[in-house]
């Protein structure tokens, strides 16, 4: 049922998107429009009608840029101002004061601890995902039995289960097994809810491995284990990178499970810390926003270095 909507695009799209996406994505279009390799020199130099400057789009994009950038500007400038300076100048003015106190204060409020907890959750979630998903995807792609098809269906069904709708029974399960207010209790459901999308992403990239390669290894009499280690894993490195980045992002940004499954300072993660900070010190906007900036730094670093993996992964959510 609900699996239908997820399977189809994978079949349709994976051909065209993955092959150009992996290499010269932009080449074919540009060359055929008559401006081969001129883009770096000045993209608007071509005179074909598709290369006319698009003023309407320019205006619309500028508006959207302002919408996206203004709050980010407020976020960064406010976090370096004193509370008095911020209150006086307002959020949009150029900053007149400069201080790092907001960041040191955030640490004093316990953000160092929250940071560490979030890191533990993230590493553990990524670990579980990386241990469970590659073998699963391998079986989905290579095992033709009905049991595997059933399991794949189950994961597609799971894709449609919104985490927020099952917080009550998850709270029940975690309480019954005695993991309430324990980071393990946060890790397990967080990892579980990463599985469907990660499975779909990784199975997609494993499907791109051609049959001939499998056959060659089968001729050598390779065991499934050897095929997995020597052929499948090395050739789906990109997919594995994507699920690592995706699950890390989910775990780092997770709010719902920590909200309902933890309560004490010692198990608090950073998103929950932000929420509590706001309810307690809502007036101290520079302090609050400094905490937000701190919570973002690791993600921005990952974004800088692994943008491709992340973007491919998120595109896969809809495209596959």
């Amino acid at each position, binding site marked *: 049922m609900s699996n*239908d909507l997820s399977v189809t695009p994978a079949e349709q799209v994976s051909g065209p998107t993955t092959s150009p996406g992996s290499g010269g994505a932009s080449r074919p279009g540009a060359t055929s429009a008559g401006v081969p390799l001129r883009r770096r020199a000045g993209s608007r130099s071509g005179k074909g009608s598709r290369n006319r400057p698009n003023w309407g789009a320019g205006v619309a994009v500028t508006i959207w840029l302002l919408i996206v950038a203004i709050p980010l500007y407020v976020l960064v400038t406010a976090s370096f101002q004193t509370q008095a300076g911020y209150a006086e100048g307002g959020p949009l003015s150029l900053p007149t004061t400069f201080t790092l106190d907001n960041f040191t204060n955030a640490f004093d409020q316990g953000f160092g601890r929250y940071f560490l907890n979030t890191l533990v959750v993230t590493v553990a979630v990524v670990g579980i995902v990386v241990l469970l998903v590659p073998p699963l995807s391998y079986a989905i792609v290579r095992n033709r039995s009905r049991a595997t098809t059933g*399991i794949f269906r189950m994961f597609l069904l799971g894709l449609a289960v919104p985490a927020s709708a099952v917080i009550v029974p998850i709270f029940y399960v975690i309480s019954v097994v005695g993991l309430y207010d324990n980071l393990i209790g946060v890790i397990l459901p967080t990892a579980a809810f990463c599985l469907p999308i990660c499975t779909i992403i990784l199975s997609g990239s494993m499907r791109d491995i051609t049959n001939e390669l499998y056959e060659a290894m089968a001729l050598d009499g390779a065991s499934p284990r050897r095929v997995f280690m020597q052929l499948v894993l090395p050739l789906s490195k990109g997919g594995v990178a994507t699920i690592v980045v995706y699950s890390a992002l989910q775990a780092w940004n997770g709010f719902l499970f920590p909200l309902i499954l933890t309560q004490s300072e010692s198990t608090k993660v950073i998103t*929950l810390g932000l*929420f509590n900070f706001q309810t307690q010190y809502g007036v101290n906007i520079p302090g609050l926003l400094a905490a937000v900036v701190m919570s973002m730094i690791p993600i921005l670093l990952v974004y800088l270095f692994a943008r491709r993996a992340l973007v491919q992964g998120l595109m896969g959510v809809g495209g596959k």
Partner: protein
Amino acid sequence: MTTRAPQGRTRPGAADLQVGRPGVVWALPAALFFGLFALLPMVLVLVLSFTQWSGLGSPELVGTENWSRLLDDPVMLKSIGLSLVLTALGVVTQTPVAMLLGVWAAGHQWNRAVLSAIFFVPLLLSAAAVSVLWRAVLDPNFGVPAQMEWLFGDGNLFGNQSTAIAVLVFVSLWQFTPLHALIYQGAAKAVPPMLYEAAEIDGAGRVRSFFAITLPQLRNTMITSVILMVVGGLTTFDTVLILTNGGPGTDTTITAFYMYQKAFRGFDFGLASAIAVVLVVAATAISLVMVRLSGYDKMRSELEGV
């Protein structure tokens, strides 16, 4: 659930037809883990909706009491209306913006790549960070409204229902448009360039090409994206929790938030489970209806043999 249990072991022969194929065993750890922490709760939520449980001790069966209480609950009825309004507003605001941005970003110009990288940033932030940030930016005393009184009047956007709803819709637009734009971008890149060249030769302009080529080619993507928006819009409540806390009064208490409130503030887990069941059923039903109406499932069956 039913497919998993009886077929735990490999059917003899099925996997061994060819050398080097992995057995079902490879899939089992992940399947069990997922079943335990994601699918079992789905079943449990239905069971819990017929019980009374305060979070301590064990749940007691109370029959349909929660359900009849739910039917008479005016806040519940109001929350359903609010959920539908917010979801609908989310879809009509995010879809056009995301589609245009996605198609725009699919172009090959370098400036588009650079700007897309900036547009993508909201998606990296946690829901908590986004909500805390916007709450601060829109703060009635220290935020943008206080600085731009000519635009925002008295500036307390959280003080009445219509502006509070507008804030929630706008923040969702800010937060989720990048994801959907990315989905559209992926699909727009997959449109064969030949189609555009042919249209150009026929003298079609940009607008014409968009409506005649891009839009029809993006149809399936649009369905996927809208379904994601509907399911997300009906079930997420973190933005509401942090931005408006359901207020003023119960004026932004959407159903998902009401469930959270009943469970984790009122400790009425039975009633909350009933609300959760309503949410899951509604989200699934809307998705299925959309799939049917759009003929998406028929396309699937054409490809089934491939």
